[in-house]
Structure formats: structure tokens, C-alpha cells
């Protein structure tokens, strides 16, 4: 360990460590990029790839992100962008959950889909993409559908869960699983020009409230589909929520929903009282 530390310190430029030096350390000591990244951050050095995170995210916070596990449920429109951004942000472990393979109708918006990945599992494409853009990040691909019966197993160890699902009843179930595990859930949903984001903390009943009138079927997305920009935007806001929760910074979208209308270009913040209080009126 001391030899590794010395190796890294010798190659640091002030407190920045280049990718070349990280790569050399991994080769020289026969260790993973994740191991090198952890040692680098623990020394108070910043991998140079994160230098534009600075001021927003300190070295200590970067280590916290690296030490974190985030589960992304669904690797389609929202999930693909969320995974891309979490990996670039430097979240150390991303658990990607999706049973599906890419189909042609995904190509209009799902960033992990290309003609070459058609027919390939989405989680496999996610693993390949993350390995390509940030080899220090571990992507755990789980090619199954989230269900209440497997939820505790697949979400075990996650500090935050990202809702990137395309089904309302599955979301409602996921919200319950997260409540049972005491894990915050960052909810995002899209349909056409419209989207919404809200964060449910343990003890909250946010998701149930957002879909309180739901009986069956899908939402506006069934008629409107989903164009390229809506998932990119909503997933970005979800990722910002994840980042803030992991760092304990800022004001999350708790007890409020961001309702996005890109057709009229309106962002409405909808505040609501917790359900239990509202019922007692």
C-alpha cells in the first residue's frame, strides 16, 4: 500500500493525478482501476478526469461518490442517461437492472442503443459503455426484471435507487421496496413533451401520491411516445438529485414534484403536504 501511495504521489501534478499515471499504477501493481482510484482519493489527490467537478465537488466528496452504490432500475431512455452521468460523475458502483434487449424503436432516444447493440441485453451495453468511459467505476449488470420478490436482494447495499422504469404499477411496487429498505428513491417519468421528477425519502409516500388515481394502464407516453430530449433532461435532473443525496448537499425535490412541460417550456414546482397529514384534514 505504501509503495502504491508513493507511486501515486510521485506522479501527481499538485493534487491532480493524470489518467496515464492511474493506468501505470494499475499495470505496475497489477490492481484494478477502482483500487487505484480509491487510493488516489484517499491520498487527497484528484484523478484529473474530475478536475472540472471542482468547486462543485471536493476531493473528499469525490471519495464519497466513489464509495457509493446507486441502483438504476431500467436501462432504457432514463436509465441509459442516468448511468452515463453517474459513471462520469464518479459514483463507484452502479447496479443496472433491466431484463430487456435493445430493439429498433429504442434508437430514437436510448443513449446505450446503437444499430450494433440491437438484440443485445441493455445491461450488457451499459457495462460496456461504463468500462469505456470510466474504468474506475464498477457496473453490476443484472438482467432480470425488478419485482417485489427480488427487490431486497438486488437493491441490497444501494444508498440511492433511481426510478427509470416505464411502468406505473412497477414503480409503485419499487417505492414500497425502497421504503422497506429505508433507501431514498429518485423518481422520474416521461411521456412526449412532458416529464416529472420527485424524490421519495424513507417514511414519505410520494410515489403513491403521484399516482394516486392510477387504476390500470400507461400514461400519456402511450399516445405521445418519447422523443430524444425528454429522457435526457429528466434523467439529468434525477442524477443531480442522486448526487445531492449522496453528498448530503442542497435541497432535494422532497414533498414537491418538478412538473416539466417542454412544449410550452414551463417548469412547475408543485409542493405538497405529506399524505398522512392531508388525509387528516
Amino acid at each position, binding site marked *: 500500500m505504501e509503495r502504491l501511495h508513493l507511486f501515486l504521489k510521485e506522479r501527481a501534478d499538485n493534487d491532480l493525478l493524470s489518467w496515464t499515471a492511474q493506468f501505470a499504477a494499475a499495470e505496475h501493481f497489477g490492481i484494478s482501476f477502482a483500487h487505484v482510484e480509491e487510493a488516489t482519493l484517499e491520498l487527497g489527490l484528484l484523478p484529473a478526469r474530475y478536475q472540472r467537478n471542482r468547486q462543485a465537488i471536493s476531493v473528499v466528496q469525490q471519495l464519497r461518490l466513489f464509495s457509493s452504490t446507486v441502483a438504476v432500475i431500467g436501462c432504457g431512455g432514463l436509465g441509459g442517461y442516468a448511468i452515463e452521468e453517474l459513471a462520469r460523475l464518479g459514483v463507484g458502483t452502479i447496479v443496472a437492472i433491466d431484463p430487456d434487449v435493445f430493439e429498433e424503436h429504442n434508437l430514437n432516444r436510448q443513449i446505450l442503443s446503437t444499430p450494433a447493440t440491437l438484440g443485445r441485453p441493455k445491461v450488457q451495453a451499459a457495462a460496456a459503455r461504463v468500462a469505456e468511459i470510466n474504468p474506475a467505476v464498477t457496473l453490476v449488470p443484472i438482467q432480470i426484471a425488478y419485482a417485489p420478490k427480488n427487490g431486497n436482494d438486488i437493491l441490497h447495499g444501494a444508498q440511492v435507487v433511481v426510478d427509470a422504469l416505464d411502468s406505473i404499477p412497477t414503480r409503485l411496487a419499487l417505492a414500497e421496496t425502497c421504503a422497506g429498505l429505508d433507501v431514498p428513491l429518485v423518481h*422520474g*417519468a416521461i*411521456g412526449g413533451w*412532458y*416529464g416529472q421528477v420527485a424524490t421519495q425519502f424513507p417514511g414519505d409516500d410520494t410515489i403513491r401520491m403521484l399516482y394516486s388515481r392510477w*387504476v390500470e394502464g400507461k400514461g*400519456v407516453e402511450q399516445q405521445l411516445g418519447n422523443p430524444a430530449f425528454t429522457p435526457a433532461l429528466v434523467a439529468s435532473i434525477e442524477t443531480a438529485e442522486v448526487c445531492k443525496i449522496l453528498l448530503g448537499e442542497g435541497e432535494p425535490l422532497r414533498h414537491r414534484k418538478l*412538473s416539466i412541460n417542454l412544449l410550452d417550456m414551463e417548469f412547475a414546482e*408543485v409542493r405538497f403536504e405529506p399524505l398522512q397529514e*392531508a388525509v387528516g384534514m
Partner: protein
Amino acid sequence: MQITVKLFATFRAGRFAVEPRTYPPGTPIVEVIRELDIPEAQIGMIMLNNRHAEPEQELHEGDNLSLFPLVGGG
């Protein structure tokens, strides 16, 4: 009695975004939904004065009613 109705996303099409509207005192929310010809199955959430509301709840002078469609894609 006058209330303010706010419609979100697709509910605006052919209707309005925000409008003051007049109803007899004690009108339940569900009456407004019917009058606006919004299919109940498309409604995700009803908010009355920033609180989660049920269709049966009665409206009062000055209330703010917001109707959101279901958005569920990913």
C-alpha cells in the same frame, strides 16, 4: 363561487392552462373533471391548495385546483 383551475401537460390541449371558473358552492372536484371532459382514467394526481385531494372533496371559494395526467414512461 369562484375557483382557479390549473391544467397540466396534455390536459391543456383544447382546454386552457389556468382559468378562474365559477361553480355552485359545494361542487365536488369530480364535477369539475366531468365538466372539463377529462377522462378520469387519465388523471394521475389531483391537488387542491397544494394538498393531495380526492375527487369527492367539495370545493370552496378561492380554491386552487390542479389536475395532472398520468406520466409513466421511462
